[in-house]
């Protein structure tokens, strides 16, 4: 996803004089809904995704006037999405993360289809066994490929903490995937 700075957003959306608030919000929603839903889903799992997306966009919209140009808008939106997901997981500790393994998309047809499905199930199951904080680091650093400094800013922790969590999460994923494929 392209990285937009705050002034770009302002010029692109909020300075369009003819747009109503609803139209401005619609543009923001269309620009970022894929990112927001993806991050929330990957950290929190399937359930309550739509409610959490709603919550994230309400926070984004309400936070726009207070947003200071200290970071990129994308990074700020990541931060809100991650916080919404983690807050929700903290409030609902009993419910485990469940991705309801998606076998329908992004798998090429062919003789290896069954292997691919098994592998997908293993990867997603391994990801769901990580702690919430470790899963958040994996999602941001490995799946979304954000730099560690940005991950640290998004999670509001030091870069050293991010490195440590990432190291531990990778080890756990390796072991889990090895176990799954044995």
């Amino acid at each position, binding site marked *: 996803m392209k990285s937009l700075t705050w002034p770009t957003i302002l010029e692109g959306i909020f300075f369009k004089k003819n747009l*109503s*608030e*609803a139209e401005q*919000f*619609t543009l923001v*929603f269309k620009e970022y*809904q894929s990112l927001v*839903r*993806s991050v*929330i*889903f*990957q950290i929190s799992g*399937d359930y309550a*995704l*739509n409610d959490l*997306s*709603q919550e994230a*966009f*309400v926070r984004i*919209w309400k936070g726009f006037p207070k947003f200071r140009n200290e970071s990129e808008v994308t990074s700020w939106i990541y931060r809100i999405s991650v916080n919404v997901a983690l807050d929700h997981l903290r409030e609902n500790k009993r419910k485990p993360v469940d*991705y309801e393994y*998606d076998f329908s*998309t*992004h798998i090429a047809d062919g003789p290896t289809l069954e292997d691919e499905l098994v*592998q*997908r199930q293993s*990867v*997603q199951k391994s*990801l769901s066994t990580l702690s919430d904080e470790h899963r958040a680091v*994996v999602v941001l650093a*490995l*799946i979304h490929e954000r730099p560690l400094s940005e991950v640290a800013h998004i999670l509001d922790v030091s870069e050293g903490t991010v490195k440590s969590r990432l190291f531990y999460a*990778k080890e756990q*994923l*390796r*072991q889990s*995937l*090895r176990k799954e*494929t*044995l």
Partner: protein
Amino acid sequence: MSLLNDSELKNLLKKHQPHAPDAPENLLNTILYRMGLEKRQNNYRSTWILMASGLASCVLVFTLMDRQFASQFNSASNSIAPSVAMTAMLEEEDESESDLNSPSLNIGEAYLSLVSR
């Protein structure tokens, strides 16, 4: 199976990352409504629509009532004159008959006949 190196692990995660299901069509409207953005617009719009439809209904009802009343009045005024005249004639006839057959007259006659005797 040997342990995956960093690059292999990252590729595997990216390849098989969980994909969020598509957003329902009404999600945007739900959020707009929740934040009061769509609500306000809808309120203004629905108020105008309500007022216009109310006004149109009133005009329609009054027009229909006016036509109905006019037609009823016309038919009533056409039929009222003969019926009134007929009623008056019948009442007059009744009165003349009732004068002759009234009990007071009969009593008077009986009295006179007794006195004459």
